[in-house]
């Protein structure tokens, strides 16, 4: 199964990875404004195209017998390309919408949606909540389902923690650690101490696994 993360205009003012001045379309000399990440069984491949070639690429992909600008003739299952996010994140959306979406970042690990699209890898468990709206159609497309029905951890979440959020309360440590580092670099030691104490509090709440685990064993 091949999934595509559709790209967007690489505006000059955007922060993070910029590519507008350096990257040309793989099919012609025009600037590449669509950056498409093909995700196939965990393997990532990028395709960079101008708007015109991007439209052709996506139409061909959905049509079933399109070419493959990146690696001509090298990829299996060509007909499936472009199926992933072409609806929800597709050409129909304005460049402006996509640029805004791309700038959104995770409160915990700080990864931007743009970085995720380029790497095909999420930054931390909280991304599933942070980018829920964007990931839902992608996940539905990959798996044909959006609900887990398999095994679940036997260990209960700590008292007072909403079980509906899974282990997200523990993942909050990632954001606190980042905040602590930033506070230290700004020499704001009061804030750093608060973050450190918050981390310890969460760790203490989630830690007694040895006991909890044994009781559940």
């Amino acid at each position: 199964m091949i999934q595509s993360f559709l790209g967007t205009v690489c505006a000059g003012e955007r922060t993070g990875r910029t590519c507008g001045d350096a990257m040309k379309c793989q099919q012609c000399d025009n600037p590449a404004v669509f950056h498409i990440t093909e995700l196939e069984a965990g393997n990532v491949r990028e395709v960079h195209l101008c708007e015109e070639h991007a439209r052709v690429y996506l139409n061909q992909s959905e049509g079933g017998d399109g070419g493959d600008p990146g690696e001509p003739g090298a990829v299996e299952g060509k007909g499936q390309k472009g199926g992933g996010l072409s609806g929800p994140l597709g050409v129909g959306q304005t460049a402006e919408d996509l640029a805004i979406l791309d700038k959104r970042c995770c409160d915990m690990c700080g990864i931007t949606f743009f970085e995720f699209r380029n790497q095909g890898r999420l930054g931390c468990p909280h991304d599933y909540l942070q980018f829920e709206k964007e990931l839902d159609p992608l996940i539905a497309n990959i798996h044909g389902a959006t609900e887990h029905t398999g095994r679940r951890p036997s260990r209960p979440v700590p008292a007072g923690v909403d079980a509906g959020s899974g282990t997200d309360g523990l993942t909050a440590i990632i954001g606190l650690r980042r905040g602590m580092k930033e506070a230290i670099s700004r020499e704001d030691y009061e804030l750093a101490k608060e973050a450190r104490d918050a981390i310890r509090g969460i760790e203490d709440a989630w830690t007694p696994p040895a006991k909890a685990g044994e009781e559940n064993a």
Partner: protein
Amino acid sequence: MRLDTLTNSIGEWLRGTGPDSDIVMSSRVRLARNLAQFPFVSRATEQDRADTERVLRGQIAAVPVGRELDYIDVGHLEEIDRRFLVERQLISREHADAQGARGVAIDRLEQVSLMINEEDHLRIQCMHSGLDLHGAWEQIKVVDDQIERAVSYAFHPRWGYLTACPTNVGTGIRVSVMLHLPALVITRQIDKVFRSLHKISLAVRGLYGEGSQAMGDFYQISNQTTLGRTEDELVQQVADVVPVLIDYERRARDFLVRETQQNVHDQVSRAYGILRTAQTISNEETMQLLSRVRMGVLLGLIGDVKLSDINSLLIRTQPAHLQKLRGGDEDSSDDIERARYLRHHFEGGDSPSRATAN
């Protein structure tokens, strides 16, 4: 060093025993897991990776495998040793090529492997010789449960186990079998079979390969989706299709013997002849010829070669294995060394006339 002792064995997946091992080389189940309190590996700092490794490594001693697990610090291995582990299917290519703190714990039978800091914090793998998916699944469940008693895996009630790549989210399970399908290749039915597998959401890959090119007619069949079905259902999805593929391959082998015996006998005998006499030979050609000889042995067309010998050569003629086995002589090329190793291996065998006596 422990890796050198491994050179003398052929590992679980080539042991050549277990149900239907004439066609099913091995059955494998792997689980992708992450610790909730650290960023995924690609976003992790060096400190995060070191902490993740420390936390998970601390649990390995408690893992109930029934045998001692050895921990190998992959981050400090020489490149040849990393490639050696990849060839033995104990670590992935991605794990071998990654940066930073990472390691793998393996048991002496090479059935269980726990990769730390691969694409996910933890990749647990259980591999059994022959067709034994349910056995591998039962074993990996116990390992997973034991680790989960001591750590908090990233989990969400709706999406299940959270993984770095959304293609693994949910169960995080990949169920696969490695099949040897030479007769389906020779009779040109293999593409048709693969198209049918794709239609039912199963993926096909070649041995060692990420792409569609298979080395030596060895193919890995695995589930593509990991969410929306239980682990048991996903194991069963792959388990259900294997007997069908075995049946196709057996029928194709019967057809070859019945309808084209002289031709197929000629093919395997030539393959055997080249392996015994070549002066220089590539890895790809070796795999291809060993595949044909393996089929010849199973069809009774070659009488003086043991199946276990062929399985052993499949791994020992791989580049890193060969380099470790040869030692010293850095001047000669891999292909010359491979041919020399094969000639030496077959030297003690009977004359070619006996091989074609059937």
